[in-house]
């Protein structure tokens, strides 16, 4: 299992478009992927779940990867967060 903390960098936060991209990225991998914000845990492969998060610019989230290809998945997804969802 891999845990990573990420910060939302773009101005608009984790809105509809990045949520869609995120879910698409996660769906490529076999491992489980969860996003944790405070006490809320959502399945990162469920877009409707991700959309219930209120992740604004500056919010910190914890990403949890668990499964055989967790290494690759965490690398690609953390990078997407660090690029500010390509909106910087």
């Amino acid at each position, binding site marked *: 299992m891999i845990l990573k903390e990420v910060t939302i960098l773009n101005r608009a936060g984790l809105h*509809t478009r990045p949520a869609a991209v995120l879910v698409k990225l996660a769906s490529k991998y076999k491992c489980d992927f969860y996003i944790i914000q405070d006490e809320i845990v959502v399945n990162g492969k469920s877009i409707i779940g991700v959309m219930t998060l209120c992740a604004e610019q500056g919010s910190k989230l914890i990403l949890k990867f668990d499964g055989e290809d967790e290494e690759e998945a965490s690398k690609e997804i953390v990078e997407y967060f660090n690029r500010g969802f390509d909106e910087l």
Partner: protein
Amino acid sequence: MSFDEIIKLKGPDTKIIEGIAAAPGYAIGPVFIYQKEIIEIYPAVSLTTDYELEALDFALERSKKELKKVIEFSREKLNERMAGIFEAHLIILEDPMLIESIRKNIIEDRHSAEYSVDVEFKKYLQQMRKTDDQLMLERANEIEDIKFRIIRNLQRKRWESKLRQSVIVVAKNLTPADTVLFTRNDVLAYVSEMGGLTSHTAILARALNIPAVVGIRGLINQLENDKTIVVDGFNGLIIINPNEEILEYYKNKIHQYSLRKKKYEELSNVICKTKDNHHIKLMSNIDFLDEIPFAIASGSEGVGLFRTENLFFQKGTFPNETEQIEAYLDLSSKFYPNVVTIRTFDIGGDKINFNEQYNETNPFLGWRGIRLLLDLPEILKTQFRAILISSVYKNVRVMLPMVSSLDEVIKAKEIFNETKKELKANGIKFDENIKFGIMVEIPSIVYCLKELSKYIDFVSVGTNDLTQYLLAVDRGNEKVFKSYQEFHPALIRVLRLITKELYRSKIEVSICGELASNLKAVPLLLGLGYNVLSVNEYLLPEIKKLILNIKLNDCKKLAVKCLNSSTQSEIIKYLDEFIKKYKGENNESL
């Protein structure tokens, strides 16, 4: 144009209703009230589990097909980014967790498909509607729209989006999909009872260049199909029963706006890039709120400088908090999602009406700008409060004028943070990440930029005052006017020093002085490292045209030559040569 002006024109039956100006433009035309069928969820019991599961699959497939059509259409009419909004909706229809839970509901609880869809969506919707965050609520509405889409398809109903004539579409709530699909017809404007500025509908209407006013509760009950109304997408107004005078007024507005727009149109949607592909951001300087529509039409990417002192001059004294909020919200909402930079009052002591006459021997070196505001902390605080309260759309920045030392910035920032804390304690919402910046217009501050970078997020260079203070010349004084050299070698070197000092600190540097609006100076400024220019709206298209035709690399070479020049005339010679080369015969007009 002001609200008062319109009120004066109105007839006895005319009714003016204020909403939120969501997309700029004007329209006069017949009303088309778009009422969605109310979708009723039929009883919970299922026929047979197999039947319900099959119906679900059918409805999901059909909904996907519909959405794909919307995506295709928005790719064609809009862009990839906007289409992305609908792509997300499509992915929701394929969400494995969601679909699984709906199926489970059908199988285990023996509910009908409609009922199961409704129940499972509601779980998410309830979670989302717990907050008072506008964005989240809008998002919930969109998700609800997807729910209705599936249920409508379960009930095997079709959606109508064909209109008979050019109309103003009025609805309780317009979903993004409605907005895009209606555009296949000739829509003059969109009006909705619900929705805010940040809703996707508003964003789409702006992208489609269709005026829109949203957020007028109870409007539909006051309207009749086919009756003419006026939509003012700049001021967020709906005018019912417009009389001749009002119609005349708006026909004139529409005419003026279309003339100006035509001139601006060809370039307004072109991204401002140099020939060698470097993006240069062109923003506008705004003095009065009625310049906003033209600045937007010119293709401005935000406001680099809003001079709040004009509110002071118009009123003759400091505007109160409410008046300020009204002005700042007007600005920030109309430019949304682009950034607007609000500069705190830049006034000199001689302009304040105190009981006793206040005279300074040297007003330009006297009590003005941030010095004055720090001595009147109540006024500064009120202004900070108004700016913060207006920052709800997260596109507002605050900027201090006439900063000469680090202490001033620290002191002002303390007051700013204190104001934030108080607002927070009172539960008033604002953008917690609001950017804080300063004007660089007094030479001393150029030499403190490194230390300052800890306290600020951006700087904007005011070249007029910077030149005046650097050269110790009052440019309003005819006798010494010759000595005011806007291309003095020292100024060019200082301008370079600023970008050099800030190069590593990730602090955005823009330039908002007159120099940025001078066509001749633009290549030099680019070469000196300025990639954000805030200019006068009417010059913006010209400046953009120039930038599209030059290379940053050549600008850099030009800047090196100018930095090595020892007189203004030498610099001007280089600048003229450069412009000549790129503009050919058009040179005379400069």
